[in-house]
């Protein structure tokens, strides 16, 4: 709703002062939820160097492959790898990275786009990516160009401890730094929902300082616990994957882009006896019920598309109320049994997100609005499009103009 007002400041000038007053009230009281889910981003970070940390790179690359398979395009994935295991001289299989000793899947195939590599992976760069404070020379492909409707997956793996994560064997990211960066992101409207997934020792402690709403966090281990590697590849001579990531991947391998497994099913799939640590998730900052949120909210790029008449209509978003929401998947029509839960989800999203029009009416009917101007506003907002609004405004100005000129004379 406030986007409506914000995006059109010209309108304010034309409207009555009372409208200005109302808009400021509305701005303060509204929440970000009003933003629609626009896109999905993933920031995947491997923070540790050296050959014996092979598994961290394999973790990150596995997750990269998974989110890519589930529909997040390369341009929306920021991949940070602190070292190059594939071309390490100790690698028995040059230019290949495996996350399983069966070597069936080469994670470092043709189509891997690493945005930050080697010594570029620093705490500073990581925080710059999150907060979007880059130097002007940094290309767009290395920036997190999310907006207030973005769902962001932030995956980090490396060596950590109580409230810190080690970067590059030389610096640390502290839980305060992370919380601060997330808060800045929130202030700058850089995300709608954020899932932070961390696979490191004592990962849970990294979330202690988080305060920003819309953040969901999951870590591989509680305070005082270690996160262990899953298995050793005796051919390559190193451990190739961590337990937490291994079972995360095992969960996603069963899914494809159309599935609707919920986040809670992912979280409940972690068996402490398999992990040898207790997976911890923090959901008190997250408003939606985990049972109703499909994993593809973060790990894929499934969202509703909005059909417009004209390809280049300037203000199409505002008019979305006129058009029916559709999922991006045309095929979903054929999979009716899968379609139903999506519909449930759709309704949910519509309820929360849909910026104006019907939803506003619904709220009005609910009797939630106490403002005396609300009826006027509702009427006002029923105006079909901006042109007519402007026209009405101009017409309303005419009497004033006439009266004022008459008075002056």
């Amino acid at each position, binding site marked *: 709703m406030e986007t409506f007002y914000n995006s059109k400041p010209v309108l304010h000038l034309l409207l009555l002062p009372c409208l200005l007053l109302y808009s400021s009230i509305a701005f303060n009281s509204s929440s970000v939820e009003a933003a629609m889910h626009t896109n999905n981003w993933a920031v995947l970070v491997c923070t540790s160097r050296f050959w014996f940390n092979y598994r961290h790179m394999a973790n990150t690359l596995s997750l990269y492959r998974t989110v890519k398979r589930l529909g997040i395009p390369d341009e929306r994935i920021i991949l940070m790898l602190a070292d190059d295991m594939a071309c390490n001289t100790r690698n*028995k299989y040059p230019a290949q990275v495996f996350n399983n000793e069966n070597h069936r899947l080469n994670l470092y195939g043709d189509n891997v786009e690493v945005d930050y590599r080697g010594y570029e992976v620093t705490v500073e760069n990581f925080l710059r990516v999150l907060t979007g404070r880059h130097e002007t020379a940094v290309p767009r492909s290395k920036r997190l160009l999310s907006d207030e409707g973005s769902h962001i997956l932030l995956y980090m793996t490396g060596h950590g401890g109580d409230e810190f994560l080690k970067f590059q064997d030389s610096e640390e990211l502290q839980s305060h730094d992370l919380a601060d960066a997330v808060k800045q992101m929130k202030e700058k409207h850089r995300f709608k929902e954020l899932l932070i997934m961390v696979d490191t020792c004592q990962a849970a402690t990294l979330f202690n300082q988080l305060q920003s709403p819309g953040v969901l966090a999951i870590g591989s281990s509680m305070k005082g616990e270690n996160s262990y590697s899953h298995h050793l590849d005796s051919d390559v001579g190193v451990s190739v994957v961590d337990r937490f990531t291994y079972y995360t991947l095992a969960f996603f391998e069963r899914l494809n882009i159309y599935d609707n497994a919920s986040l809670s099913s992912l979280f409940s799939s972690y068996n402490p006896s398999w992990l040898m640590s207790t997976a911890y998730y923090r959901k008190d900052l997250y408003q939606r019920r985990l049972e109703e949120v499909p994993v593809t909210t973060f790990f894929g790029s499934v969202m509703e598309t909005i059909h417009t008449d004209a390809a280049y209509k300037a203000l199409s978003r505002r008019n979305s109320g006129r058009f029916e929401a559709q999922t991006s998947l045309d095929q979903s029509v054929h999979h009716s049994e899968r379609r139903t839960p999506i519909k449930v989800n759709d309704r949910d999203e519509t309820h929360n997100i849909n910026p104006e029009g019907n939803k506003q009416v619904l709220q009005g009917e609910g009797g939630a609005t106490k403002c005396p101007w609300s009826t006027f506003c509702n009427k006002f907002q029923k105006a079909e499009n901006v042109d007519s609004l402007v026209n009405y405004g101009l017409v309303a100005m005419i009497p004033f103009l006439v009266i004022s000129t008459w008075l002056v004379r």
Partner: protein
Amino acid sequence: MAETKVKSHNDDKPKPRVRPIVRLGIFLVSHSFLVSVVCCTSGVLALFLLPVLAKNTYISENALMPGSASPMLSNQHVLDGNRLVKDLTNSNLKSSETGIGSHKIIAQYMLDLGAEVSFHKFHPQMNQFHPLHFFSSPDSGKIQENYSCSSYGINTVGIIRAPRGDGKEAIVLVTPYNALKSGFGEALSLGIAYSVFSLLTQVTWLAKDIIWLVADSQFGEYAAVAAWLREYQTPKFSSSSTLNAEMCPDINNLFEIKVHSVAGSKFSNSFRRAGTMAAALVLKVRDQSEQFEDTISIYAEASNGQMPNLDLINVVNYLAVHRQGLRVNVEKLRSLLNSSWLKSLGEFFESLAKVAKRLNPKCKFGIPATEYVEGTATLASSLYYQALGVPTGPHGAFRDYQVDAITLEISPKFSLDKVWRNDILLRGGRLIEGVIRSVNNLLEKFHQSFFLYLLTSPSKFVSVGVYMIAFALLIAPLPMVAASLYVDANSSSNCSKGDSSTPPAITDADEHGITIRSWRWLNSAKLVFIVHLWGAIVSLLPYFICQIPDCSPTTSFVIWVLLSILSLLILNTVLASPLACVKASQVKEWALVKSVTISSVFIGLGLMSVINFATAEFGALLLVPMCLLAQPLKLDVRAGTLRSFCRIICNLVLGHIAFPPAAFFLLKGMLDGFGSANVGDFWMWVESLWAWNSATYLFIGMVQLPCWVLCVSILFHSC
């Protein structure tokens, strides 16, 4: 005691508040006798407790990851190795008198694998005493002109370049080989090294270059390795060596054949290098052995008690025990294994641990008695070889260049069976492969684990933080006793005067006397300085003595002793002549001399403990009781009590034991039996010490000998 007297004397005045640390110091100094007895006993006891306090070793460096990769050495490589062993033994049977044939065979085998091969010709360097070369890095060596063509050795060097590596680092594998009279063990060690080498030419995971050095051991294993290392690390920019080579037809012949036989350009006449050495392994196979199982012995001690990083030993131990099922051995003092007193001590500790466990179940203290005896025997040998300061194998040459190296000696259980030979080739080869792969994973030099430690078994160690306690306890009484003696000597004369004169009226003359008396220790310091100067002269004398041609060890030793006595007399007459008049005037002169001696010994032991702990520990065990007990015999005889009688006995015994040659002969007699002892042996031992630049030699010459002389002079002091 004197302090309390002074205090009571000044009681009427308001005393300024003394700080607690000063009060503690005064308390310790005034009870120095009790403190020294307690400290020395606990120091010796702590030394015997060390095997109990030993911790299990662990691999400290994450990057090593030993055994995480499955061995790739297959039977094919073993067959290759076997082929080389056969060829070498056959060529030995044909017995070319120079041994060039076997060099050619080895080089040919290396070339066939695609390695870079070169020969390194060297002349063995004579062991010479360079007084200023202690602690200095080895130089490139003098090039002597008049070597004959017969007295040279040829090292064969093969280098595999890491296919994707940066060529900055290398791992060295050394197999000593005497082409003239090689045993089967040497050929077998070459076979093991070759099988590993042939595997490493095929693998893709090398990050460091591999150097295989076949060291020509006809002049000793150490000399060959040291010569090659000298050439590797400090290149000579002169053409004399190559000229020299061309004069000898044998070597020319060798080079020509090589160049003809191999079409490729891999063979080179010049010296080949790879990067800095990350680690070095010396591999040997013992010819005869009476072991019941395959055993691998680790030798780690390098010159001056330097040890390689503990991680290297850990890796070898872990792979040998847990992967290849070999038994790992470190050197033990065999004579201690059967000693009954050690066994009973172990049993005592064991029962003590049981009591402790009953009191506190969490207490993890104590080991079985048999383990204690073995641990003590290992610890004693570890201390002995470190104290000697002479490397226990060719790996010592690497330590001089700060390269971590150990010698592995495989002793197979029975011999000459074909199946057995393949088995030992396979297991030995896989062990070497595993160690190389583990070191290959290393990112930096070995730095994570300990460099200062003593082994009590292959998987147990005592770190510097623990064993220093024993040493510190042993030498802690020295400064206290020195201070107490000084205070005593000063105040006794003070008091005698103070009692006679009235306290408030201190005249100027008296004050003057006090200042003179408080500087009296300078006389004693001069004496101690002179004796130490003499010690330095004595340790330099062998440099001149060994210039005398055709001198048997016995005559050299006698000359040395005579010159030493002569120099002491000369020094005494020239520099210490005022001593006599001082001696006459002062009553407690000997106490001051003892005080200064003890201080100098304390400084000497403290310095030595930094350079070579083991030497300092042995030195402290001898010197500390001698210094503390030393008292003029006349006084004790005059006293005539039981206590003084005991002291006379102790002084006489210690005075004999602490004399360096006497200590040497006693130790030698204990180890080898007294029958074979010879006066010249000491000279030979000293010669070996300075040949290895051992700091133990300096310690004996400049700390122990002067201290002994001073103590003896105190014993025979006329008061």
